[in-house]
């Protein structure tokens, strides 16, 4: 564990250099930017749907990476924000509030509020207790959603109208919707890049490295971690709003605990505490999942060992491998 801690913080100390990692990152981002062009030319609509999902879940992974990779807060309930953001959109749509100007801010605010409550309680603990409390809260929200009979309960709820933006954006156009998601993803990564190098971000990373020392030199670490937790929750709530628009459907399954696990896997696979790691992790994980499920009935049988190898041999994830895999 300590080796991975050190590896992770390479990003904290060293500047960005042009490496294989940078090249791959640029290639992935460029490829994602061109997906709609490719699908228009080939008429492969499925691919656009798949990559829209990849981009949306990548936003969730970027958000989780902020607290888990940079802040050392391993949240095992991050899918709850996808659910809260999604349900905010779905519930408002059913009640006749179709405007995205209402739905999306509510999705973000509701997720932030939930993060504030969960964080205020869970951040008083650490390690495995923190993991268990975030999981317990997410399970609670999951069962609350099942209990919402008016909004479909266990079966979920169909959303008949995507969020409207007064004629400026037509989210029913799949290309427009894809680029909206992609723009939010890039903005999210940029936001994280600014945050982690700011005063606030250094306090967060310092608290991961050695919280006791941070308190001793005069930081009230709890409140900084809590604000970080809320920022991450808000961003993932926005991803939830996008996900509901993408599938035109919400259900408790959005926030099943295995979905929280998937997000963790994406972040670890891509590289904890690296800016583009979560994006690469999301792309690789979801494409592998998709590809393997076509090859075999048991994709996890192959996915599992791959993840195991990454966990054992590549502490910095794919990002770390590409950077040269230095382990000192």
């Amino acid at each position: 564990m300590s080796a991975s801690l050190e590896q992770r913080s390479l990003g904290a100390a060293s500047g960005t250099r042009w490496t294989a990692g940078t090249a791959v990152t640029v290639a992935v981002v460029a490829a994602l930017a061109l997906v709609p062009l490719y699908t228009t030319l080939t008429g492969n609509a499925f691919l656009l749907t798949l990559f829209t999902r990849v981009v949306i879940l990548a936003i969730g992974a970027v958000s989780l990476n902020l607290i888990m990779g940079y802040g050392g807060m391993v949240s095992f309930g991050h899918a709850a924000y996808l659910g809260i953001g999604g349900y905010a959109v779905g519930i408002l749509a059913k009640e006749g509030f179709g405007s995205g100007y209402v739905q999306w801010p509510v999705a973000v605010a509701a997720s932030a509020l939930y993060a504030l409550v969960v964080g205020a309680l869970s951040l008083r603990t650490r390690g495995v207790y923190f993991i268990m409390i975030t999981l317990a809260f997410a399970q609670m929200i999951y069962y609350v959603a099942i209990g919402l009979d008016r909004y479909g309960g266990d079966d979920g709820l169909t959303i008949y109208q995507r969020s409207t933006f007064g004629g400026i954006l037509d989210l029913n156009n799949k290309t427009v919707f894809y680029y909206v998601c992609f723009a939010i993803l890039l903005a999210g990564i940029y936001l994280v890049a600014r945050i982690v190098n700011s005063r606030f971000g250094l306090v967060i990373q310092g608290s991961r490295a050695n919280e006791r020392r941070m308190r001793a030199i005069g930081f009230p670490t709890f409140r900084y971690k809590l604000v970080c937790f809320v920022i991450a929750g808000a961003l993932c709530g926005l991803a939830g709003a996008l996900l509901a628009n993408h599938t035109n459907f919400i259900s408790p399954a959005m926030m099943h605990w295995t979905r929280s696990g998937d997000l963790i896997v994406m972040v670890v696979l891509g590289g904890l505490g690296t800016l583009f790691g979560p994006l690469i992790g999301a792309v690789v994980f979801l494409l592998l999942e998709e590809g393997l499920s076509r090859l075999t009935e048991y994709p996890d049988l192959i996915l599992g060992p791959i993840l195991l190898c990454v966990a054992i041999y590549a502490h910095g994830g794919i990002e770390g491998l590409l950077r040269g895999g230095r382990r000192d």
Partner: protein
Amino acid sequence: MTEPLLRVDRLTKRFGGVVPADAITLTIAPGEVHAVIGPNGAGKTTLIGLLSGEIPPQQGRIHFDGVDITQLPVYRRSRLGLARSFQITSLLAGFTALDNVALAVQAHRGHSFRFWRDARREQRLRDPALAALDRVGLADRAGVRVERLSHGEHRQLEIAMALATQPRLLLLDEPMAGMGPDESAQMVRMLQKLKGDITIMLVEHDMEAVFALADRLTVLVYGRIIASGDPVAVREDAGVRQAYLGEKDSGQGARHG
């Protein structure tokens, strides 16, 4: 008699049957170097934990510069000017030496709810940090990550981080721990330069260092103060010789435990 900077009244901490702090009463005057010695398990590190706020006492009060700080959390005490170093090196892994010290500066230069600007480009954080590194002789190692520094450099960085918070009272927990004779001597010279500027409470096993630096000396045994006063007088104290210094020649060599 000037008002003491630190006044500790009957401070008590029990862990089950162990009493690492048994009604400790002591004062530290502004500007003095006050050494605390005692055998292993005497409660020296517990005392630093109590004073810095990491360990809550069961009884007793702590006044710092006339303010009752007994109930204040660690970071508030740091804001008031109380800094500590750690016996077991406690640094921010993954960061450079300069980053470590700059964070200590940052903690005392306004709040850190600033999310946008690159903190590593704030000269008002970097300059004082570099000055603190220079003070301990680490300026040329500023850009080196903590993992690549030697043990002796870790110990120096410990002090630099504490200094960067501009403390009025510095609690040093065995700053020479694990150091060779040369490094120890260097550390003593560095602390001698600080003497007068900053009030220091020095917990140390290295008797040579203690007698080179201390204005006053307190001997702690099983959580109790058995002697306190002028270092030479305390050394000659019969009770101290028996309880702690024993047959060992107190004037020579470094002992670590």
